[in-house]
Structure formats: C-alpha cells, structure tokens
C-alpha cells in the first residue's frame, strides 16, 4: 500500500480543500469554522492507517497550517502525531473501518459543539466522504 499513493495528487487535493475551507466557504456561504483541513488530516489516517507517507505528508501539512494560522510551532504536528499514535494502538486491537471511524468522529464533534452546530458536524462528515472518494479515485494507484 505504501507505494500506491500519488503524493502530488494528495497535495493537490489538500490545496483544493484548503482554498474551499479558508476562502470559498467563509466568503460565499458564511461558514467560518476551519474544520475541513483538520478532517483531511484525520481522513488520511483513517483511509490508509498509520504508514510512513501519511505521517510525512500529514506532518508537513500540519507544519504549514501552524505557520499560516500562526499557531504555536509544533502544536498541530504534535496533535496530528498523537492522533496517529492513538489510531495505531486502536487498530492493532480492532479492525476499524474508515466509515465507522468517520461517523464516530463526526458524532463526537456534534456532542462537543452541541446540537445547534449540527451543520459543522455534517460538514465534517461530508468532508470525510469527499476525502475517501478522492483518495480512492485520484490518489491510490490501482493494480488492475
């Protein structure tokens, strides 16, 4: 699986999601919560599991986001890697299907933010769906 990821396509999908999340959704539809790029990072882990290319690309993207959003250096990378570590241990005991993981995380978001913000949880769930579809069709090299 390691060699079956087209990193350039993955980067292009990230740029598209980054622009939709930071530019198009807030300016046209008034969605101000930057949740899509964070969902993208988690979607990579859920889709391919904890593998070296995912860790590398995820860390670079997290680092870029930290500088762009002016967060304390290392904070988002640390959160991403801790999420990866948690998933690594969970997946060594259970077989977690990506859609189940996405549903659980979206429901967690819904319970944290409250039912008045269900649209954010819905946005997160839709982003998971879009990411998984794009990963399957654009990023992964098919053997057939």
């Amino acid at each position, binding site marked *: 699986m390691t060699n079956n990821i087209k990193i350039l396509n993955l980067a292009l999908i990230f740029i598209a999601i980054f622009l939709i999340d930071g530019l198009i959704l*807030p*300016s046209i539809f008034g969605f101000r919560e930057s949740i899509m790029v964070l969902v993208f990072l988690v979607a990579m882990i859920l889709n391919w599991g904890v593998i070296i290319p995912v860790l590398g690309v995820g860390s670079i993207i997290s680092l870029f986001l930290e500088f762009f959003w*002016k967060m*304390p250096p*290392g904070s988002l*990378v640390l959160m991403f890697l801790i999420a990866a570590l948690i998933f690594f241990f969970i997946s060594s005991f259970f077989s977690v299907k990506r859609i189940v993981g996405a549903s659980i995380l979206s429901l967690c978001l819904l319970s944290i933010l*409250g039912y008045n913000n269900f649209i954010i949880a819905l946005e997160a769930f839709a982003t998971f769906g879009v990411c998984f579809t794009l990963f399957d069709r654009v990023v992964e090299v098919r053997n057939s």
Partner: protein
Amino acid sequence: MIKSPLKPLVVLLLAAFIIFILGNYMPLGKLWTIPGFAVDSLSYLFGRFNSFHKFADQIRQWRSLSIQNEQLLKENSDLLAGLSKLDILEKENDFLRKTLDIKQQTGKGIVYAQVFNFNFGPGGYNLLINKGAIDGVVKDDVVITEEKVLVGVIDEISENFSRVLFLSDPKFKITAKVMGGITAGIAKGALTEGMYFDLIAKEDEIKEGDILISTGNDMFPSALIVGTVAHVEINESQTFKKVRIDPAPAIKYLNGVIIIKRNP
C-alpha cells in the same frame, strides 16, 4: 515487507515535542512570511466572493423588503430627530473642547486592511489581514469596520500580514456599556456562543436587543459597537445576571477593516 511505522512515529513525535518546547522560548513563527502576491491575491478573491455572498443574500431577502422598508422609514425619522439634537450637542461640545484646550481628535493613525483568511476553529477565533509590520501595525492595535463595529485586536504580526484576535475568542475582553444606559461590565469572548457580558448585577437594567458599546476605560477607543444583547438569564441563587451577546451583525460581511494604531 511493510516497515513498522512505530519507530518513525516516535521519532516524529519527539521532534514535534522539541519544536513545541523551543517555540515557547524562541520566536520561530517570525521566520515565516507569506509572499506578498499570495496575500494580495487571496484578499482580492475573498473580496470578490464576499460580494457574491452579499448579492445572494439580498436576493434571498427580497420577501422581507416591505417590512424592512417600514423599519428603515421609522429609523430614518428617529435618526433625523437624533441629528437635530446632535447638531446642538456638537456646537456645545466644540465650545467646551476649545475652552478646555483639549485636542479635537485623538491623533491616532489608521491603516486600511483586507481580510484574507478566517480561522474559526474550536481552538480559537481569529482572522488574517494583509497588513503587517512593514505597514506599522503593532500588537494590540484595535481593528474595526467602516461602521465602527469592533472586530478585535492585533494578536500577532508578521512582516506583511497579521493575525487578529476576533472578539468571540475566549482570550478577548473589553469593558462595555449599554448604549443610552448606565449598565456597564466586561464583555468576554465565548466562541460559538458569541460573547458573555460579565459583572452585571441583578438590579442593573439590561434587556434583549440592547446595543453594547465600548466605554473607553481600557485600551479600546470609546463608542465602538461591540454587539447586541441576545439573552438575559436571571438566577435567584446567583449575584450576577448571565448575559449573552451576539457580536455586531456587520461582521457577517467582513472584508475590509480599519486598524486604529496605538502610536500616531
């Protein structure tokens, strides 16, 4: 054979932890500068998309135009009455200023900036604007809209862009009062809840729909619009009322902002 990712994961975690610790003592964030053309292009695109949003919103609201028209006519007559009163007050004020030899203006400089990114995540609410250290922007400069609606304060500055702490961010605080009243307190950011207006005693007069403005008793200039009282909750067992504020509605169409500089 697939390599176990545990070893590189632990190495990366250690590296990130070291960067995180170092970042608390060294200004690593200042090394980063977004190219000027990227900032300008993003702010231009943001402005264009925002105009489209305004246009779409106006189409959606066409049904309520007659009600809005009535309200506007009433507000217009109220404003005219207010203007005539203001005219008299202005002359009186000018006279008093001259008498006391007070400077007519604050003498503070302003900078016009464009917003190019929002970061309204669970960790905090802030936005990026296309003016930075080279434009003379410094930390704690106040950011407002053209309508004198408070947006926030400059939190971090890079060479050509800055991060603005939005007024719904939990780190944001301002002393505010009810417009046309005497009730005053401290407004604090509360993320998705908007803001909370603290230290309002049970006997203080405040109701839903009241507009809050800055008092000028802190680093913020006076008479900036902070928001509207959305909900007032009175609990008999508590000394203070729980007041929730909706940040001012003009922020919905945030595009261009004005930075009031602390240093003239």
